[in-house]
Protein backbone atom coordinates (compact mmCIF):
# COMPACT_ATOMS: atom_id res chain seq x y z
CA UNK A 1 0.00 0.00 0.00
CA UNK A 2 2.70 2.53 1.02
CA UNK A 3 5.96 1.99 -0.83
CA UNK A 4 8.99 4.07 0.00
CA UNK A 5 12.21 3.73 -1.98
CA UNK A 6 15.57 5.44 -1.68
CA UNK A 7 14.16 8.30 0.35
CA UNK A 8 16.74 10.92 1.31
CA UNK A 9 16.32 14.22 3.06
CA UNK A 10 18.96 16.71 4.19
CA UNK A 11 18.12 19.75 6.27
CA UNK A 12 20.15 22.93 6.25
CA UNK A 13 19.85 24.81 9.50
CA UNK A 14 20.14 28.55 10.04
CA UNK A 15 23.92 28.52 10.33
CA UNK A 16 24.19 26.66 7.04
CA UNK A 17 25.16 23.31 8.59
CA UNK A 18 23.57 20.29 6.98
CA UNK A 19 21.91 17.39 8.80
CA UNK A 20 21.09 14.21 6.93
CA UNK A 21 17.81 13.07 8.46
CA UNK A 22 17.02 10.30 5.95
CA UNK A 23 19.53 8.49 3.79
CA UNK A 24 18.29 6.04 1.18
CA UNK A 25 15.43 4.87 3.41
CA UNK A 26 13.07 2.16 2.21
CA UNK A 27 9.90 0.86 3.76
CA UNK A 28 6.79 -0.99 2.63
CA UNK A 29 3.58 -0.85 4.62
CA UNK A 30 0.82 -3.32 3.81
CA UNK A 31 -2.85 -2.48 3.50
CA UNK A 32 -4.59 -2.52 6.92
CA UNK A 33 -1.28 -2.94 8.67
CA UNK A 34 -0.44 -1.34 11.99
CA UNK A 35 3.22 -0.48 11.64
CA UNK A 36 5.14 1.04 14.51
CA UNK A 37 8.25 3.06 13.80
CA UNK A 38 10.82 2.90 16.59
CA UNK A 39 14.25 4.48 16.84
CA UNK A 40 16.60 6.65 18.85
CA UNK A 41 15.61 10.28 19.10
CA UNK A 42 16.80 12.38 16.19
CA UNK A 43 17.02 9.41 13.82
CA UNK A 44 14.45 10.84 11.43
CA UNK A 45 11.16 9.24 12.49
CA UNK A 46 9.22 12.47 12.39
CA UNK A 47 10.85 13.45 9.12
CA UNK A 48 9.88 10.13 7.53
CA UNK A 49 6.30 10.49 8.75
CA UNK A 50 6.04 14.06 7.50
CA UNK A 51 7.41 12.98 4.13
CA UNK A 52 4.61 10.42 3.92
CA UNK A 53 2.13 13.11 4.99
CA UNK A 54 3.38 15.31 2.16
CA UNK A 55 4.39 18.05 4.57
CA UNK A 56 8.13 17.85 4.00
CA UNK A 57 9.60 17.90 0.50
CA UNK A 58 12.33 15.28 0.16
CA UNK A 59 15.52 15.42 -1.90
CA UNK A 60 15.35 12.10 -3.69
CA UNK A 61 13.48 8.80 -3.71
CA UNK A 62 9.83 7.95 -4.15
CA UNK A 63 6.78 7.54 -1.94
CA UNK A 64 3.85 5.76 -3.55
CA UNK A 65 0.45 5.02 -2.11
CA UNK A 66 -1.40 2.31 -4.01
CA UNK A 67 1.09 2.85 -6.83
CA UNK A 68 0.52 6.61 -7.12
CA UNK A 69 3.36 8.93 -6.12
CA UNK A 70 2.26 11.38 -3.46
CA UNK A 71 2.09 15.07 -4.27
CA UNK A 72 1.77 17.01 -1.06
CA UNK A 73 -0.88 16.36 1.56
CA UNK A 74 -3.89 14.40 0.36
CA UNK A 75 -7.33 13.29 1.52
CA UNK A 76 -6.11 9.69 1.76
CA UNK A 77 -3.90 10.53 4.75
CA UNK A 78 -4.49 12.16 8.11
CA UNK A 79 -2.05 12.96 10.85
CA UNK A 80 -2.16 12.92 14.64
CA UNK A 81 0.37 15.20 16.32
CA UNK A 82 2.42 14.75 19.46
CA UNK A 83 1.49 18.18 20.80
CA UNK A 84 -2.15 17.67 19.68
CA UNK A 85 -2.12 20.79 17.46
CA UNK A 86 -5.69 21.74 18.35
CA UNK A 87 -7.03 25.19 17.52
CA UNK A 88 -7.28 26.81 20.97
CA UNK A 89 -10.14 29.11 19.95
CA UNK A 90 -12.33 26.38 18.48
CA UNK A 91 -14.67 24.09 20.40
CA UNK A 92 -14.16 20.33 20.53
CA UNK A 93 -16.72 19.83 17.77
CA UNK A 94 -15.21 22.52 15.58
CA UNK A 95 -11.76 21.03 16.04
CA UNK A 96 -12.97 17.56 15.09
CA UNK A 97 -14.78 19.03 12.08
CA UNK A 98 -11.76 21.11 10.98
CA UNK A 99 -10.55 18.68 8.29
CA UNK A 100 -14.08 18.23 6.97
CA UNK A 101 -14.53 21.98 6.79
CA UNK A 102 -11.36 22.35 4.73
CA UNK A 103 -12.71 19.72 2.41
CA UNK A 104 -15.89 21.69 1.88
CA UNK A 105 -18.28 19.39 3.73
CA UNK A 106 -21.51 21.27 4.52
CA UNK A 107 -21.96 22.51 8.06
CA UNK A 108 -24.83 20.26 9.14
CA UNK A 109 -23.14 17.16 7.83
CA UNK A 110 -19.71 17.87 9.27
CA UNK A 111 -21.14 18.70 12.68
CA UNK A 112 -23.14 15.51 12.74
CA UNK A 113 -20.10 13.44 11.84
CA UNK A 114 -17.96 15.31 14.34
CA UNK A 115 -20.51 14.73 17.13
CA UNK A 116 -20.59 11.02 16.39
CA UNK A 117 -16.80 10.81 16.62
CA UNK A 118 -16.72 12.90 19.77
CA UNK A 119 -19.07 10.35 21.31
CA UNK A 120 -17.01 7.42 19.99
CA UNK A 121 -13.92 8.91 21.62
CA UNK A 122 -15.73 9.12 24.95
CA UNK A 123 -16.02 12.89 24.94
CA UNK A 124 -19.81 13.21 24.91
CA UNK A 125 -20.80 16.25 26.94
CA UNK A 126 -17.58 18.11 26.08
CA UNK A 127 -18.66 19.21 22.59
CA UNK A 128 -18.66 22.93 23.39
CA UNK A 129 -15.51 22.96 25.51
CA UNK A 130 -12.33 24.62 24.37
CA UNK A 131 -9.08 22.60 24.19
CA UNK A 132 -7.64 24.67 27.05
CA UNK A 133 -10.38 23.30 29.29
CA UNK A 134 -9.48 19.64 28.62
CA UNK A 135 -6.80 17.36 30.03
CA UNK A 136 -3.97 16.20 27.77
CA UNK A 137 -5.55 12.78 27.25
CA UNK A 138 -8.85 14.34 26.24
CA UNK A 139 -7.08 16.73 23.89
CA UNK A 140 -5.42 13.87 22.09
CA UNK A 141 -8.77 12.08 21.81
CA UNK A 142 -9.92 15.20 19.96
CA UNK A 143 -6.81 14.99 17.78
CA UNK A 144 -7.56 11.37 16.91
CA UNK A 145 -11.22 12.12 16.25
CA UNK A 146 -10.22 14.95 13.90
CA UNK A 147 -8.01 12.57 11.92
CA UNK A 148 -10.66 9.83 11.80
CA UNK A 149 -13.32 12.33 10.72
CA UNK A 150 -11.86 12.64 7.24
CA UNK A 151 -11.95 8.84 6.86
CA UNK A 152 -8.35 8.44 5.77
CA UNK A 153 -6.92 5.27 4.31
CA UNK A 154 -3.71 5.94 6.18
CA UNK A 155 -3.42 7.23 9.71
CA UNK A 156 -0.05 8.84 10.50
CA UNK A 157 0.66 9.20 14.20
CA UNK A 158 3.75 10.97 15.55
CA UNK A 159 4.32 9.92 19.17
CA UNK A 160 0.67 10.71 19.85
CA UNK A 161 0.82 9.56 23.46
CA UNK A 162 4.24 11.03 24.22
CA UNK A 163 2.86 14.05 26.07
CA UNK A 164 0.35 12.32 28.38
CA UNK A 165 0.88 10.55 31.68
CA UNK A 166 1.48 6.80 31.93
CA UNK A 167 -2.04 5.83 33.01
CA UNK A 168 -3.73 7.93 30.37
CA UNK A 169 -1.32 6.51 27.82
CA UNK A 170 -2.37 2.95 28.69
CA UNK A 171 -6.03 3.89 28.29
CA UNK A 172 -5.43 5.64 25.00
CA UNK A 173 -3.43 2.67 23.68
CA UNK A 174 -6.30 0.32 24.46
CA UNK A 175 -8.83 2.67 22.89
CA UNK A 176 -6.71 3.02 19.76
CA UNK A 177 -6.35 -0.75 19.48
CA UNK A 178 -10.08 -1.23 19.83
CA UNK A 179 -10.73 1.41 17.16
CA UNK A 180 -8.17 -0.07 14.80
CA UNK A 181 -9.39 -3.62 15.28
CA UNK A 182 -12.84 -2.44 14.30
CA UNK A 183 -12.02 -0.15 11.37
CA UNK A 184 -8.61 -1.44 10.24
CA UNK A 185 -7.09 1.68 8.70
CA UNK A 186 -3.43 1.46 7.70
CA UNK A 187 -1.45 3.03 10.53
CA UNK A 188 2.11 4.29 10.73
CA UNK A 189 2.75 4.99 14.39
CA UNK A 190 5.97 6.64 15.55
CA UNK A 191 7.09 5.94 19.10
CA UNK A 192 10.24 5.94 21.18
CA UNK A 193 8.87 3.26 23.51
CA UNK A 194 9.73 -0.41 22.86
CA UNK A 195 6.69 -1.49 24.90
CA UNK A 196 4.34 0.69 22.90
CA UNK A 197 5.88 -0.45 19.61
CA UNK A 198 5.28 -4.12 20.48
CA UNK A 199 1.91 -3.64 22.13
CA UNK A 200 0.39 -1.90 19.12
CA UNK A 201 2.22 -3.03 16.01
CA UNK A 202 1.88 -5.87 13.53
CA UNK A 203 5.50 -5.12 12.74
CA UNK A 204 8.08 -2.83 14.29
CA UNK A 205 10.25 -0.90 11.87
CA UNK A 206 13.45 -0.22 13.73
CA UNK A 207 15.18 2.94 12.52
CA UNK A 208 18.85 3.77 12.86
CA UNK A 209 20.37 7.24 12.99
CA UNK A 210 23.25 8.24 10.71
CA UNK A 211 22.31 6.85 8.26
CA UNK A 212 18.63 7.55 8.95
CA UNK A 213 16.92 4.50 7.52
CA UNK A 214 14.91 1.45 8.51
CA UNK A 215 17.51 -0.96 9.84
CA UNK A 216 15.27 -3.92 10.60
CA UNK A 217 11.65 -5.03 10.42
CA UNK A 218 10.56 -7.06 13.42
CA UNK A 219 7.27 -8.98 13.13
CA UNK A 220 5.19 -8.99 16.32
CA UNK A 221 3.73 -12.42 16.79
CA UNK A 222 1.09 -11.55 19.36
CA UNK A 223 -2.55 -12.59 19.00
CA UNK A 224 -5.29 -10.05 18.34
CA UNK A 225 -7.53 -8.58 19.56
CA UNK A 226 -5.06 -7.13 22.02
CA UNK A 227 -7.30 -4.42 23.38
CA UNK A 228 -9.40 -6.52 25.71
CA UNK A 229 -8.45 -7.39 29.26
CA UNK A 230 -5.82 -4.68 29.59
CA UNK A 231 -3.66 -5.85 26.69
CA UNK A 232 -1.61 -8.96 26.02
CA UNK A 233 0.18 -11.11 28.53
CA UNK A 234 3.25 -9.03 29.27
CA UNK A 235 5.53 -12.05 29.66
CA UNK A 236 6.54 -14.48 26.90
CA UNK A 237 6.69 -13.10 23.37
CA UNK A 238 5.97 -9.57 24.53
CA UNK A 239 8.85 -9.54 27.00
CA UNK A 240 11.23 -11.22 24.54
CA UNK A 241 10.46 -8.71 21.82
CA UNK A 242 10.82 -5.63 23.98
CA UNK A 243 14.10 -7.01 25.35
CA UNK A 244 15.34 -7.68 21.81
CA UNK A 245 14.38 -4.18 20.65
CA UNK A 246 16.12 -2.62 23.62
CA UNK A 247 19.30 -4.61 22.85
CA UNK A 248 19.27 -3.31 19.31
CA UNK A 249 18.57 0.25 20.39
CA UNK A 250 21.31 0.13 22.99
CA UNK A 251 23.79 -1.03 20.35
CA UNK A 252 22.79 1.96 18.26
CA UNK A 253 23.23 4.36 21.16
CA UNK A 254 26.65 2.87 21.94
CA UNK A 255 27.83 3.04 18.33
CA UNK A 256 26.72 6.60 18.39
CA UNK A 257 28.73 7.38 21.48
CA UNK A 258 31.96 5.89 20.12
CA UNK A 259 31.49 7.80 16.89
CA UNK A 260 31.00 11.03 18.76
CA UNK A 261 33.86 10.66 21.20
CA UNK A 262 36.15 9.44 18.45
CA UNK A 263 37.14 6.28 20.36
CA UNK A 264 38.11 3.29 18.18
CA UNK A 265 35.05 1.22 17.32
Amino acid at each position, binding site marked *: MIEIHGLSKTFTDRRGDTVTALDDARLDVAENEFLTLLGP*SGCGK*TTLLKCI*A*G*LVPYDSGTIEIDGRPIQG*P*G*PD*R*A*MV*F*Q*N*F*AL*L*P*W*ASVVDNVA*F*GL*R*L*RGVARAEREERARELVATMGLAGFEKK*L*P*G*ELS*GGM*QQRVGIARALA*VQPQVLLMD*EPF*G*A*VDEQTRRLLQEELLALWEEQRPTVVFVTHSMEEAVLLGDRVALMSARPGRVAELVPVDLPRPRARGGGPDRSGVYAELTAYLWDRLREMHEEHRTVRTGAPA
Partner: protein
Amino acid sequence: MTRLNARLPYQILTFALFAAAWELYARARGGLLLPGFFETLRATGALLAEPELWRALYVSNQALVLGFAIALALGIPLGILLGRFRTLERYADVWLNILLVTPMAAIIPLLVMWTGIGLTSRTALVTVFSIVMVIVNSRAGVRQVDPSLIEMARSFGAREREIFTRVLLPGALPAVMTGVRLGLGRAVTGMVIVELLMISDGVGGLILEYRGLLKAPPLYATIVIILAEALLLISAARWCERRLTHWSRTTATRANLAGSPK
Protein backbone atom coordinates in the same frame (compact mmCIF):
# COMPACT_ATOMS: atom_id res chain seq x y z
CA MET B 1 -16.15 41.36 34.28
CA THR B 2 -16.04 40.04 37.84
CA ARG B 3 -12.43 41.17 38.04
CA LEU B 4 -13.42 44.68 37.03
CA ASN B 5 -16.06 44.79 39.74
CA ALA B 6 -13.61 43.51 42.30
CA ARG B 7 -11.25 46.36 41.46
CA LEU B 8 -13.93 49.04 41.60
CA PRO B 9 -13.73 49.85 45.36
CA TYR B 10 -9.98 50.42 45.11
CA GLN B 11 -10.41 52.63 42.09
CA ILE B 12 -13.04 54.70 43.86
CA LEU B 13 -10.78 54.97 46.90
CA THR B 14 -7.74 56.20 44.96
CA PHE B 15 -9.91 58.60 43.01
CA ALA B 16 -11.41 60.03 46.22
CA LEU B 17 -7.93 60.51 47.68
CA PHE B 18 -6.82 62.23 44.47
CA ALA B 19 -9.85 64.54 44.48
CA ALA B 20 -9.37 65.39 48.16
CA ALA B 21 -5.68 66.21 47.66
CA TRP B 22 -6.52 68.39 44.69
CA GLU B 23 -9.27 70.27 46.54
CA LEU B 24 -7.08 70.85 49.62
CA TYR B 25 -4.11 72.01 47.57
CA ALA B 26 -6.25 74.37 45.48
CA ARG B 27 -7.76 75.93 48.64
CA ALA B 28 -4.41 76.30 50.38
CA ARG B 29 -2.80 77.84 47.35
CA GLY B 30 -5.77 79.88 46.17
CA GLY B 31 -5.53 82.01 43.06
CA LEU B 32 -7.29 82.34 39.79
CA LEU B 33 -5.47 79.69 37.79
CA LEU B 34 -6.05 76.73 40.12
CA PRO B 35 -9.73 75.79 40.46
CA GLY B 36 -10.56 73.17 43.06
CA PHE B 37 -11.99 69.77 42.34
CA PHE B 38 -15.57 70.80 42.97
CA GLU B 39 -15.28 74.01 41.00
CA THR B 40 -13.92 71.96 38.10
CA LEU B 41 -16.87 69.61 38.37
CA ARG B 42 -19.29 72.51 38.24
CA ALA B 43 -17.45 74.00 35.27
CA THR B 44 -17.59 70.64 33.51
CA GLY B 45 -21.36 70.54 33.97
CA ALA B 46 -21.64 74.04 32.59
CA LEU B 47 -19.37 73.33 29.65
CA LEU B 48 -21.42 70.28 28.70
CA ALA B 49 -24.32 72.65 28.06
CA GLU B 50 -22.25 74.80 25.66
CA PRO B 51 -22.72 74.20 21.92
CA GLU B 52 -19.14 75.41 21.53
CA LEU B 53 -17.89 72.25 23.26
CA TRP B 54 -19.92 69.91 21.08
CA ARG B 55 -18.72 71.62 17.92
CA ALA B 56 -15.13 71.22 19.10
CA LEU B 57 -15.67 67.56 19.97
CA TYR B 58 -17.23 66.96 16.58
CA VAL B 59 -14.29 68.56 14.77
CA SER B 60 -11.70 66.66 16.80
CA ASN B 61 -13.44 63.32 16.59
CA GLN B 62 -13.79 63.56 12.85
CA ALA B 63 -10.02 63.38 12.62
CA LEU B 64 -9.89 60.69 15.29
CA VAL B 65 -12.40 58.39 13.62
CA LEU B 66 -11.00 58.85 10.12
CA GLY B 67 -7.38 58.65 11.18
CA PHE B 68 -7.87 55.61 13.39
CA ALA B 69 -9.97 53.82 10.78
CA ILE B 70 -7.15 54.30 8.29
CA ALA B 71 -4.63 53.07 10.87
CA LEU B 72 -6.66 49.88 11.35
CA ALA B 73 -7.38 49.33 7.67
CA LEU B 74 -3.70 49.64 6.79
CA GLY B 75 -2.05 48.50 9.99
CA ILE B 76 -3.75 45.17 10.62
CA PRO B 77 -3.18 43.67 7.14
CA LEU B 78 0.34 45.09 7.04
CA GLY B 79 1.22 43.67 10.44
CA ILE B 80 -0.20 40.29 9.52
CA LEU B 81 1.74 40.16 6.27
CA LEU B 82 4.92 41.18 8.02
CA GLY B 83 4.39 38.45 10.58
CA ARG B 84 3.79 35.78 7.96
CA PHE B 85 6.46 36.69 5.41
CA ARG B 86 9.74 37.36 7.11
CA THR B 87 11.41 38.62 3.95
CA LEU B 88 9.15 41.70 3.99
CA GLU B 89 10.66 42.54 7.34
CA ARG B 90 13.87 43.75 5.71
CA TYR B 91 11.99 46.52 3.97
CA ALA B 92 9.72 47.49 6.82
CA ASP B 93 11.91 47.26 9.88
CA VAL B 94 13.67 50.57 9.57
CA TRP B 95 10.39 52.44 9.03
CA LEU B 96 8.73 50.79 11.98
CA ASN B 97 11.67 51.71 14.17
CA ILE B 98 11.49 55.28 13.00
CA LEU B 99 7.77 55.38 13.80
CA LEU B 100 8.42 53.82 17.20
CA VAL B 101 11.21 56.08 18.41
CA THR B 102 10.60 59.44 16.71
CA PRO B 103 8.94 62.01 18.94
CA MET B 104 5.85 62.27 16.82
CA ALA B 105 5.24 65.90 17.65
CA ALA B 106 8.36 66.71 15.66
CA ILE B 107 6.81 65.66 12.38
CA ILE B 108 3.71 67.81 12.80
CA PRO B 109 5.29 70.82 11.05
CA LEU B 110 6.22 68.59 8.12
CA LEU B 111 2.70 67.23 7.83
CA VAL B 112 1.26 70.72 7.93
CA MET B 113 3.64 71.83 5.20
CA TRP B 114 2.62 68.89 3.01
CA THR B 115 -1.10 68.78 3.59
CA GLY B 116 -2.13 72.15 4.93
CA ILE B 117 -3.95 72.91 8.17
CA GLY B 118 -7.22 71.16 7.47
CA LEU B 119 -8.83 67.87 8.27
CA THR B 120 -6.38 65.97 6.03
CA SER B 121 -3.46 67.01 8.13
CA ARG B 122 -5.12 66.19 11.44
CA THR B 123 -6.32 62.84 10.13
CA ALA B 124 -2.88 61.96 8.83
CA LEU B 125 -1.36 62.75 12.19
CA VAL B 126 -3.80 60.52 14.07
CA THR B 127 -2.93 57.72 11.65
CA VAL B 128 0.81 58.22 12.03
CA PHE B 129 0.49 58.32 15.81
CA SER B 130 -1.53 55.14 16.13
CA ILE B 131 -0.59 52.88 13.24
CA VAL B 132 2.69 51.63 14.64
CA MET B 133 1.03 50.02 17.69
CA VAL B 134 -1.44 48.29 15.41
CA ILE B 135 1.25 46.99 13.05
CA VAL B 136 3.69 45.84 15.70
CA ASN B 137 1.07 43.99 17.74
CA SER B 138 -0.56 42.36 14.72
CA ARG B 139 2.85 41.20 13.58
CA ALA B 140 3.64 39.77 17.01
CA GLY B 141 0.23 38.07 17.04
CA VAL B 142 0.92 36.20 13.83
CA ARG B 143 4.40 35.26 14.99
CA GLN B 144 3.14 33.76 18.19
CA VAL B 145 0.71 31.44 16.42
CA ASP B 146 2.03 27.93 17.03
CA PRO B 147 3.73 26.78 13.77
CA SER B 148 2.47 23.27 14.40
CA LEU B 149 -1.07 24.59 13.83
CA ILE B 150 -0.06 25.75 10.37
CA GLU B 151 1.46 22.35 9.70
CA MET B 152 -1.69 20.67 10.97
CA ALA B 153 -3.86 22.78 8.69
CA ARG B 154 -1.62 21.97 5.74
CA SER B 155 -1.82 18.26 6.53
CA PHE B 156 -5.60 18.52 6.19
CA GLY B 157 -5.23 20.19 2.82
CA ALA B 158 -5.39 23.89 3.73
CA ARG B 159 -4.11 26.31 1.11
CA GLU B 160 -2.40 29.59 1.94
CA ARG B 161 -5.67 31.53 1.94
CA GLU B 162 -7.24 29.07 4.36
CA ILE B 163 -4.16 29.13 6.57
CA PHE B 164 -4.70 32.88 6.84
CA THR B 165 -8.41 32.80 7.52
CA ARG B 166 -8.64 29.68 9.67
CA VAL B 167 -5.37 29.73 11.59
CA LEU B 168 -3.38 32.96 11.44
CA LEU B 169 -6.20 35.49 11.79
CA PRO B 170 -8.01 33.85 14.70
CA GLY B 171 -4.70 33.03 16.36
CA ALA B 172 -3.47 36.59 16.05
CA LEU B 173 -6.73 38.17 17.17
CA PRO B 174 -5.88 38.65 20.86
CA ALA B 175 -2.67 40.49 20.02
CA VAL B 176 -4.39 42.47 17.24
CA MET B 177 -7.00 43.61 19.75
CA THR B 178 -4.28 44.65 22.16
CA GLY B 179 -2.77 46.68 19.31
CA VAL B 180 -6.15 48.27 18.65
CA ARG B 181 -6.49 49.28 22.28
CA LEU B 182 -2.96 50.71 22.55
CA GLY B 183 -3.30 52.36 19.14
CA LEU B 184 -6.53 54.01 20.24
CA GLY B 185 -4.77 55.60 23.19
CA ARG B 186 -2.14 57.01 20.88
CA ALA B 187 -4.77 58.17 18.41
CA VAL B 188 -6.43 60.29 21.10
CA THR B 189 -3.04 61.71 22.05
CA GLY B 190 -2.35 62.54 18.41
CA MET B 191 -5.73 64.16 18.00
CA VAL B 192 -5.15 66.58 20.88
CA ILE B 193 -1.46 67.27 20.30
CA VAL B 194 -1.86 68.39 16.72
CA GLU B 195 -4.56 70.82 17.77
CA LEU B 196 -2.45 72.17 20.59
CA LEU B 197 0.74 72.56 18.60
CA MET B 198 -0.19 73.51 15.08
CA ILE B 199 -3.78 73.58 14.04
CA SER B 200 -5.80 75.45 16.61
CA ASP B 201 -9.13 73.72 16.19
CA GLY B 202 -11.35 71.22 18.01
CA VAL B 203 -10.88 70.51 21.71
CA GLY B 204 -7.20 71.40 21.54
CA GLY B 205 -8.18 74.77 20.11
CA LEU B 206 -10.67 75.17 22.94
CA ILE B 207 -7.92 74.63 25.50
CA LEU B 208 -5.77 77.27 23.80
CA GLU B 209 -8.68 79.70 23.70
CA TYR B 210 -9.49 79.36 27.43
CA ARG B 211 -5.83 79.65 28.27
CA GLY B 212 -5.57 82.85 26.28
CA LEU B 213 -8.57 84.26 28.16
CA LEU B 214 -7.22 82.99 31.49
CA LYS B 215 -10.47 81.10 32.07
CA ALA B 216 -9.15 78.33 34.26
CA PRO B 217 -12.35 76.43 35.22
CA PRO B 218 -13.54 75.75 31.63
CA LEU B 219 -9.93 74.98 30.67
CA TYR B 220 -9.85 72.27 33.35
CA ALA B 221 -13.30 71.13 32.36
CA THR B 222 -12.18 70.64 28.76
CA ILE B 223 -9.32 68.45 29.93
CA VAL B 224 -11.70 66.43 32.11
CA ILE B 225 -13.95 65.87 29.12
CA ILE B 226 -11.04 64.75 26.94
CA LEU B 227 -9.95 62.34 29.67
CA ALA B 228 -13.47 61.00 30.01
CA GLU B 229 -13.68 60.37 26.29
CA ALA B 230 -10.33 58.59 26.28
CA LEU B 231 -11.34 56.39 29.21
CA LEU B 232 -14.64 55.57 27.58
CA LEU B 233 -12.99 54.59 24.30
CA ILE B 234 -10.35 52.45 25.99
CA SER B 235 -12.97 50.67 28.10
CA ALA B 236 -15.00 49.96 24.98
CA ALA B 237 -11.89 48.56 23.28
CA ARG B 238 -11.10 46.43 26.30
CA TRP B 239 -14.64 45.13 26.37
CA CYS B 240 -14.45 44.12 22.68
CA GLU B 241 -11.09 42.50 23.33
CA ARG B 242 -12.49 40.37 26.14
CA ARG B 243 -15.56 39.41 24.16
CA LEU B 244 -13.62 38.37 21.07
CA THR B 245 -10.73 36.57 22.68
CA HIS B 246 -12.32 34.73 25.54
CA TRP B 247 -10.40 31.57 24.54
CA SER B 248 -6.95 33.01 25.04
CA ARG B 249 -7.52 33.10 28.80
CA THR B 250 -8.50 29.42 28.93
CA THR B 251 -5.41 28.49 26.95
CA ALA B 252 -2.73 30.57 28.57
CA THR B 253 -2.58 28.44 31.68
CA ARG B 254 -2.94 25.12 29.92
CA ALA B 255 -0.81 25.56 26.82
CA ASN B 256 2.34 24.60 28.65
CA LEU B 257 0.78 21.53 30.18
CA ALA B 258 -0.13 20.22 26.76
CA GLY B 259 3.51 19.26 26.28
CA SER B 260 5.83 20.37 23.57
CA PRO B 261 7.61 18.13 21.08
CA LYS B 262 11.06 17.09 22.13
